């Protein structure tokens, strides 16, 4: 019987996969969950103890959409910052977007990322490799080779594959490799030079808008190709009621389509941009109308949306301190995803298990992985207080970047510990 290296005692164990929602103790032996004891735990030779009384113990969160800065954009973000920010936010695994410079379209880059991340510690890095070489949308990447190097999915970062025939072939090929294709749903031509949602607010502000149809068209295309090929496709982050409708229909038909929503998009609408053209609200996808936000909130509750993502998009202050139309889009999100999901759950009267589904089991399932706390499972866990409130302070953000619309706001939740591979990757001060 192996020694218990870490014992997490007295917390509310919340594991949607096993159906457990009860106070108990989780024992880890090295990088594996050794046992889950409901009620009292038997005495044992324990290395480290964490007192989780009054806290929730859940499978570690998994983030599907994040830009981690390396290689190429180290001025915005580095793995040292991002993986620590992720762990502080309760994430035990973060997918890196292929939109690095150079793009992650080779085993060399994928391998680099995996090795760099191992050296940093913090959350695990799950690389998403590009579907097309250079993300240029012309030729497919060497997907088997990339899978071998560690890629968990294929997608061209925040860029849709314009050529539908190529997307089809890419999906078929990825299907054989056994991983999903991640499609950022935005028809580039329809989106045009829009810098926010096309609607009355954009009209009032005199800004070019991106119509909802630009996203809907791309989501419907992905659904049709999933039907055609039987291949798994994940669309995200999505922002429109139309995309939600397409996802709902696809799932009703049992098609292998999944979707994710950015935590911020569960709360803010395009009206937020009207407050002085704040560039922190210039996002991709853009913030949309009230009806879209309502549809997204409902879809998450129904399970039509599989995951909440941080959509972590770091930008330098110089790239944000510009005229709105010139400012780089994006906001960081690893630190606020839990708080924003808790806020959604509180407002909609959803149980805490929905939060864990949205942040852990749902996204893990998109990748074909599990996220659970059962004997034999990989020891990736988060221990958090859902009732506490945390103010988003610039000085407390581990990310190198500071571009978040939530600065200064108090959000629900506080992560006490994040355990990755059986080791404490983050302990709140």
């Amino acid at each position: 019987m192996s020694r218990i290296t870490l014992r997490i005692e007295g917390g509310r164990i919340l594991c949607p996969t096993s159906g457990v929602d009860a106070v108990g103790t989780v024992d880890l032996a090295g990088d594996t969950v050794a046992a889950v004891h409901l009620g009292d735990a038997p005495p044992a030779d324990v290395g480290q103890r964490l007192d989780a009384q009054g806290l929730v113990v859940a499978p570690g969160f998994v983030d599907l959409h994040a830009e981690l800065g390396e290689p190429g954009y180290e001025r915005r973000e580095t793995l040292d910052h991002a993986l620590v920010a992720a762990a502080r936010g309760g994430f035990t695994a973060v997918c890196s977007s292929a939109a690095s410079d150079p793009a992650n379209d080779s085993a060399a880059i994928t391998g680099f990322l995996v090795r760099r991340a191992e050296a940093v510690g913090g959350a695990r890095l799950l690389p998403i490799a590009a579907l097309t070489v250079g993300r240029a949308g012309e030729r497919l990447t060497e997907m088997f080779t990339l899978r071998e190097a560690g890629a968990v999915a294929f997608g061209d970062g925040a860029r849709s594959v314009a050529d539908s025939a190529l997307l089809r072939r890419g999906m078929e090929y990825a299907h054989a490799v056994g991983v999903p294709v991640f499609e950022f749903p935005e028809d580039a031509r329809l989106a045009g030079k829009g810098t926010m949602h096309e609607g009355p607010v954009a009209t009032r502000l005199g800004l070019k808008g991106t119509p909802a149809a630009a996203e809907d068209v791309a989501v419907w295309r992905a659904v049709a190709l999933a039907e055609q090929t039987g291949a798994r496709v994940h669309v995200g982050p999505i922002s429109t009621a139309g995309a939600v409708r397409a996802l709902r229909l696809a799932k009703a038909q049992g098609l292998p389509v999944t979707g994710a929503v950015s935590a911020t998009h569960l709360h803010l609408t395009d009206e937020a941009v009207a407050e002085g053209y704040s560039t922190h609200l210039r996002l991709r996808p853009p913030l949309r109308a009230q009806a879209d936000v309502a549809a997204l909130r409902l879809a998450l509750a129904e399970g039509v949306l599989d995951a909440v993502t941080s959509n972590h998009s770091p930008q330098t202050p110089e790239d944000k301190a510009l005229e709105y139309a010139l400012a780089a889009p994006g906001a960081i999100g690893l630190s606020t995803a839990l708080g924003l999901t808790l806020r959604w759950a509180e407002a909609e009267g959803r149980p805490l298990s929905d939060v864990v589904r949205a942040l852990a089991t749902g996204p893990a399932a998109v990748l074909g992985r599990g996220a659970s706390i059962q004997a034999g499972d990989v020891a990736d866990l988060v221990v958090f207080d859902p009732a506490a409130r945390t103010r988003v302070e610039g000085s407390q953000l581990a990310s190198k970047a500071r571009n978040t619309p939530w600065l200064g706001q108090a959000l629900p939740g506080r992560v006490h510990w994040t355990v990755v591979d059986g080791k404490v990757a983050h302990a709140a001060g």
Partner: protein
Amino acid sequence: MSGRRHLLELASLSADQIERLLDLAESFDSIARRPIKKVPTLRGRTVVNLFMEASTRTRSSFELAAKRLSADTLNISGGSSSVVKGETLLDTALNLAAYRPDIIVLRHRYAGAPHLLARHVDASIVNAGDGAHEHPTQGLLDMLTIRQHKRRIAGLKVAIIGDIAHSRVARSGIVGLSKLGAEVVVCGPPTMVPVGVEALGCRATHLRDEAVADADVVMMLRIQKERLAEELFPSDREYARFYGLNAKVLRRARPDCLVMHPGPINRGVELDGDVADGPQSVILDQVSAGVAVRMAVLYHCAGGGEEGAA
């Protein structure tokens, strides 16, 4: 910065505030008719005209307005400045602010640029046109011109015809006129009338003749050649026939209908030459109203009360 008076947009002004600016402009208008077209009102104050977008009319109008108030002026145009060397707008403005100007008049191709300056620069900011958002002094001078000819604005039917979607003149016009009680109708091909424009305070139609019918004022907007490349309309020829203003179409309006245009005019496209030069045209009155309005705005932003000109 707080404590500073800015003019960023008509949308954040009340009808009362707009009326008072128009009244102020009326009092400054009389100065243009004197032999000595100058008052010492803003003597010793500094006005910077930061025009990042090409402009003849608006720029010379603001320059003249500042000089007639005896202010010291500094004119900077985007093409010739450090911006070409890659300096950001904010850095340019902060550098200028080091000279402690009282007012920075900004024209910029991006909406929200004056708001950015108002947040970070310690000077009063006057928006001389920001992208497709607003051109508040144009809106004011259009209203002043109408008021001078019609004695009122409330209850008038005003038609604004052209590329509404890309027009800051249209937006300021709709907002200002509707606040003062005019009935505004905008008209253009569907590709040029933006989503939700009614929320700004107007009706929208794609039928020119309907827009012009019984109008008290018809305001024509310039069609830009770039829009042709964007496939917003097929040709000048078609545009002129179905959305342009000529003498025959003008007869559908009221007999004393005013014809307005912010300039410069594409003669033969949105406006026929004979109408532009005809008896109902007040286009040149708009230009002189412009100087008076800008004097009023500069005076107001520099902290002037509502008593009027010296």
